[in-house]
């Protein structure tokens, strides 16, 4: 294995790109691609919905991987941060519904407001991440698991007791600003951030913490500080994912962000390989499309509706067993700490090792 994640996605042709451009180049490439995708897919509501769900799950898995994979901590309350983002962004959008930026066309004005709402949600989630992470990350790893789990519960109870969040009924009527392009722009951003962290000295410090916390501390790595920062970044993107989610589903309620959702993300990260960004992406796509596919399959076979419902029911215990089997048989997941291009067959072009 190469050092886990020593290069960024764009370093493949790093030699040819001037240093000043390397920071921004991926964005320049991504934007037209996203615009094209939007034009091609805009027509089919089902494809749009499915792709959006996949995208949100990718954001969640990749961001969780920063904490659970790269840093070797174990958070199991990611859905809690998603909920914070979803509700804050949702409420922001609802309260700005009547506002339009007069100097912009309506569609552009909506997207600006959408972005504001998303950032508000992400920031609040990051703040929660800081508040929860600071006490528990000072302690040994397993405390984080239990505290994040508890945090999810606290969020659920707070939402159920707050009028502005629609209590148990949930929040409906949030303007449907989201688009495939917007979702995948954030997918792109989180992947870029994860890869650049992995390839930078900050990432190396995180890997060091994962490998041996005592040694990292002795070598001058501020382990608590790094853990908290990784946690904050991770929560931020979970909040963004929640915000996106809130803008393409008809209603959000506390039931969308339970422990089950957190577990789903954990399973994605563990299946993909703790520490592998591309692994998290592949697992997120697979685990999102599989139940959808099975459901459509049963539907197409004309099975009575209950069978299609069973897919949803069986999913949960299967996730649990999958974790156990994975840990016993292949604890490193699909890719381990490697990335997709490290495990591709030999004849495909590979990246050279090391940074620059």
């Amino acid at each position, binding site marked *: 294995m*190469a050092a886990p994640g020593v290069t960024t996605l764009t370093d493949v042709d790093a030699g040819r790109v001037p240093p000043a451009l390397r920071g921004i180049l991926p964005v320049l490439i991504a934007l037209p691609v996203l615009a094209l995708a939007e034009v091609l897919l805009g027509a089919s509501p089902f494809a749009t919905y499915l792709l959006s769900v996949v995208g949100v799950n990718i954001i969640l898995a990749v961001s969780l991987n920063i904490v659970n994979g790269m840093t070797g901590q174990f958070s199991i309350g990611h859905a809690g941060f998603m909920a914070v983002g979803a509700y804050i962004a949702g409420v922001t959008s609802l309260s700005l519904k009547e506002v339009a930026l007069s100097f912009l066309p309506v569609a552009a004005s909506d997207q600006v407001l959408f972005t504001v709402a998303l950032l508000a949600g992400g920031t609040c989630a990051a703040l929660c991440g800081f508040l929860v992470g600071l006490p528990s990350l000072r302690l040994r790893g397993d405390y984080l698991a239990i505290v994040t789990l508890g945090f999810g519960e606290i969020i659920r109870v707070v939402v159920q007791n707050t009028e502005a969040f629609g209590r148990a009924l949930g929040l409906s009527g949030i303007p449907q600003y989201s688009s495939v392009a917007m979702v995948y722009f954030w997918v792109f951003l989180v992947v870029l951030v994860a890869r650049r962290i992995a390839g*930078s000295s900050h990432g190396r410090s995180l890997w060091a913490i994962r490998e041996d916390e005592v040694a990292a501390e002795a070598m001058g790595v501020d382990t608590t500080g790094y853990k908290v920062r990784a946690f904050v970044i991770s929560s931020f993107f979970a909040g963004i994912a929640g915000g996106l989610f809130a803008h393409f589903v008809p209603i959000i309620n506390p039931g969308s962000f339970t422990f089950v959702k957190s577990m789903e993300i954990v399973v994605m990260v563990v299946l993909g390989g703790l520490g592998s960004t591309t692994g998290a992406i592949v697992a997120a796509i697979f685990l999102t499309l599989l139940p959808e596919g099975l459901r459509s399959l049963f539907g197409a076979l004309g099975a009575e509706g209950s069978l299609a419902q069973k897919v949803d029911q069986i999913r949960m215990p299967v996730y649990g067993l999958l974790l156990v089997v994975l840990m016993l048989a292949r604890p490193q997941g699909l890719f381990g700490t490697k990335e997709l291009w490290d495990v591709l067959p030999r004849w495909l072009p590979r990246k050279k090792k090391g940074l620059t």
Partner: protein
Amino acid sequence: MSTVAAAPAPGDALLQASGVSIRFGGLKALTDFNLTVRQGDLLGLIGPNGAGKSTAFNVLTGVYQPTEGEVRVAGQRVNGWVPHQINHLGLARTFQNIRLFRALTALDNVKVACRAQGGLHPVRLGPMAKAATAMRNYRDWWRALLLTPGFQAEERELTRQAEHLLEVMGLSHRRDEEAKNLPYGEQRRLEIARALGTRPKVLLLDEPAAGMNTREKADLMVLIRRLRDEFSLGVLVIEHDMKLVMGICERITVLDHGETIARGAPAEVRSDRKVIEAYLGDSYLESHGGAA
């Protein structure tokens, strides 16, 4: 680093433990431990198993907090500090049971250490200075995320430093290999390279020769001396192998049951009655051979 006062003069104590005691519950693991390391020193810390040598290391590096007494690094009192802060003052260590970042390459192991320096972290400063450091810290993350040219240059500089250290330790050919795949002796050397990456003033080596053969030990003795001179270090070595300790250390402190039972030049220590008793009492035959 703004936190360290003016560079200490050659004669100043870089590391000083005065009257340090540590108790775990009722057990006194270390009693009234005194030690001074200056630049250019090459000191030894010996004693039978369970004498408190590693405990002493752990107190000095901030892993344990002293129950009594104080530890000073570069003139700064460090009681209550955490290990990374103490490391930033210029104290680096290796571990008895090798603790490398096993899945990282040799190069990255050293780069982690090189990077962690540079005054990025607040070391017990006023609130204003702390805020400033925090700001710098966040700016630094942004620079990494945006891959600014300055950041890329920094990364190249880190690589260069780390490569230099690998070369010094004779590990250049292992640059891109994972630490866990290195042979045992090279892992020990990589640990020293990593410790040097933090640009220490004092280097603490915890049984650096453990598991090495005679030939490797001889090389190690030469190497330790060379490092001390090349990097202007003070070195403190914990070692079981009496020959090695007697061979390179200029002064030796002997611990037994957490108490300092002897201190002085190798020749004095060797003939000290208490030392011989402590070792023979534990039927430590190898050392008996060394002492005879």
